[in-house]
């Protein structure tokens, strides 16, 4: 069995990769011109944050912190459907 300290040596590298990706995705979200490209960037940002939340739960070694992962992953799909319906309803009016 690999000890937990080995993981603690590797984990900052992995978390810093996803944190850098989170910052650049956020800049893309904040500077986008139209609603469609903003929602597309939010999709990738939330999927990135799901992985980051699993890594934070692995850092704290607690199973209770995993409780928000699955609702957050399904919120992406909900946001896509709601925004697409809003856009189509505006056009048909």
């Amino acid at each position, binding site marked *: 069995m690999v000890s937990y300290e080995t993981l603690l040596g590797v984990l900052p590298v992995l978390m810093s990769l996803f944190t850098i990706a989170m910052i650049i995705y956020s800049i893309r979200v904040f500077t986008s011109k139209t*609603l469609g490209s903003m929602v597309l960037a939010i999709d990738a940002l939330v999927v990135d944050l799901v992985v980051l939340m699993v890594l*934070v739960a692995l850092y704290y070694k607690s199973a209770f*912190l995993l409780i928000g992962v699955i609702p957050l992953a399904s*919120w992406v799909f909900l946001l896509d459907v*709601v925004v697409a319906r*809003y856009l189509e309803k*505006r056009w048909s009016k």
Partner: protein
Amino acid sequence: MILLLSSIAATLALISTILVLYEKDVAKAVVLAGVESVFYALLLQVFLAPDLLIAYVGIGLGLNTVVLLYVLTKGERYEEA
């Protein structure tokens, strides 16, 4: 390490709040409010509050965005200065 991550998340939430304040397109403002809630969900997880996290992700993210976009279909999309 974990405090650095949470400070970055708090800063990005502050930036998105300022952008909600100065955005002319209200549909984009509603979606940006959702982004701000996502960063606060990460902050709640770092501060070790899992019971708040499940209530917050369900209500603060899902229901608020749906209701705000539904109200927005009844009125104007753009807000003049």
